[in-house]
């Protein structure tokens, strides 16, 4: 008799869990955390052996339409055959990307995901001694190793404290579904596009008129400089929530799941809200582009709305505040859509979708660091993808340097005036 699916699920052994007790940095309190093995697996960072120890060659005798490669461990002389998709995964296994990130890159590249491909490849690579595994965070590992050093201890305590500031809700999906049902869907309708166009038109007209009154506006702001700056920054920070909410609603619009919504300290120093909308990768390319575009459009809308309202007011602190806030919003719109800065923001995601190069940032860094100079020395033409990588790297480098120089100029100029 065949086994029913329900029985099969019941008979399958549960994923193993370990329960850890983590003490606070002060050593007083503690919390216990259950860590499922599946989570640890997703966060592991496979690393291929050093480049000098392996070589790869494309096999000429594969069946028509199927590209396969021979991957050889030079030390053990073991050779395995891998497909084009497996080669892509192999290239991601640099010790920096987690399995979760590798799976995402795969999905973006191939548009679908085979749940067996990564475990199967890892087994194959391990049998040929082509792979090692690294812990989750190398920074944390280094800090843990140097705990005797007070600076390392302080850095570790700071990181831990910042991690503690993360507030996450994994049950936010239902909330966003409700928001979408009770009016959020309008944001993805032609009505929203028309409203945005009208607000941008009205706001632009006001902005042009206000430009002529910039002296009065800056004067009004200058009288309450500190209050104005703090107010503008605080209000702007709060609008980051709406940016993330729109991303989440876009996810719902395309029938995908919002995995998390919360507050965290990004890169250890930027307080921000975030929405985990990675499920959108399972949707169409159009959905991914709309999702990436939706967040920045919030800034465009708020910016021009403020310009419009400011245009109706008399000179004073309120007008000055609205104009400063509007400028910051419009600036954020452009910054978040600007793809060339090595940061994977909304604009970057749109760019990779348009170019069809899902791991552009990683590929560009890798190619410029390791492949470009060899190709130039050999005077070989670059492929389309390599040209894209070089262009992305060059534009990003120029942008970052330009941004730094601009800020230096602004500081120097402000100091003189």
């Amino acid at each position, binding site marked *: 008799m065949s086994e029913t699916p329900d029985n099969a699920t019941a008979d399958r052994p549960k994923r193993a869990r370990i*329960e850890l007790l983590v003490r606070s940095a002060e050593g007083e309190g503690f919390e216990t955390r259950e860590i499922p093995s599946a989570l640890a697996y997703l966060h592991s960072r496979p690393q291929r052996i050093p480049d000098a120890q392996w070589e790869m060659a494309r096999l000429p005798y594969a069946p028509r339409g199927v590209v396969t490669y021979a991957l050889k461990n030079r030390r053990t002389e073991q050779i395995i055959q891998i497909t084009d998709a497996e080669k892509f995964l192999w290239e991601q296994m640099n010790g920096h990307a987690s399995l979760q990130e590798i799976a995402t890159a795969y999905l973006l590249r191939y548009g679908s995901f085979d749940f067996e491909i990564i475990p199967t490849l890892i087994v194959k690579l391990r049998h040929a001694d082509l792979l090692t595994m690294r812990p989750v965070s190398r920074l944390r590992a280094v800090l843990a190793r140097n705990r005797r050093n007070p600076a390392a201890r302080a850095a570790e305590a700071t990181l831990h404290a910042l991690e503690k500031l993360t507030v996450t809700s994994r049950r936010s999906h239902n909330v966003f579904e409700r928001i979408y049902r009770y009016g959020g869907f309008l944001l993805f309708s032609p009505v929203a596009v028309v409203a945005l166009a009208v607000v941008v038109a009205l706001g632009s007209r006001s902005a042009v008129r206000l430009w002529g009154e910039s002296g009065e506006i800056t004067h009004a702001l200058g009288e309450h400089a500190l209050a104005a700056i703090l107010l503008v920054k605080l209000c702007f920070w709060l609008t980051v929530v709406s940016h993330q909410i729109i991303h989440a609603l876009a996810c719902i619009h395309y029938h995908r799941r919002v995995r998390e919504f919360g507050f965290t300290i990004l890169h250890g120093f930027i307080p921000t809200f975030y929405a985990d909308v990675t499920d959108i990768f399972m949707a169409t390319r159009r959905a991914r582009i709309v999702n990436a575009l939706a967040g920045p459009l919030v800034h465009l809308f708020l910016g021009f709305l403020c310009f419009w309202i400011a245009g109706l007011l008399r000179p004073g602190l309120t007008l000055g505040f609205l104009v400063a806030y509007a400028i910051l919003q419009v600036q954020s719109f452009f910054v978040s859509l600007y793809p060339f800065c090595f940061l994977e923001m909304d604009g970057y995601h749109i760019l990779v979708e348009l170019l069809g190069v899902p791991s552009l940032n990683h590929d560009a860094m890798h190619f410029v660091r390791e492949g470009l100079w060899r190709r130039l020395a050999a005077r070989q033409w670059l492929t389309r993808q390599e040209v894209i990588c070089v262009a992305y790297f060059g534009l990003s480098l120029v942008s970052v340097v330009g941004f730094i120089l601009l800020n230096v100029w602004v500081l120097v100029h402000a100091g003189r005036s």
Partner: protein
Amino acid sequence: MAPRPDVAFLRQVVLFKDVDEPTLLALWPRLRERRLKKGDVLFRAGERGEELFLIRSGSIVVSTLVTGRVEQVLARLGPGEVFGEMSVLGDEQKRSATCQAESDAVLLGLGRNDLNQFIESSPRDAAKFFQHMSQVAFRRLRQSSDLVAEVTRWGLEATGLDVEHK
């Protein structure tokens, strides 16, 4: 000393469930009450131990150091359970794990000398005590073996190691 003899509680403790009531009444004044607030560490692994503890109320988490501030939870113990016996009865007098209150807890501590007096004064009850103690030890040994197996399985799953086919 704990306030009033609570024989009913001592009967809940597996070590004392077959001990005669007069012996329990005589033992009661030797038990020292300890109150812990949530998060209080009763003792840490490696410290010298002179007492075993009975949990009257609350929950105690038993853990052992893994790395840095991270420890592995070995067990959670609740009312009626005993811990700390290894350093009192074992060959080493050091605590083998760290015990900490997971919630506000009331414990009764029995010191090494008091335990020895209990054994000497009523050998018959002491035999029952040790019979149950060995059952407790065997159960904990079994739990430790299960934990080792679970942690090994966790490691295999977490690293994706396929040991069956290598």
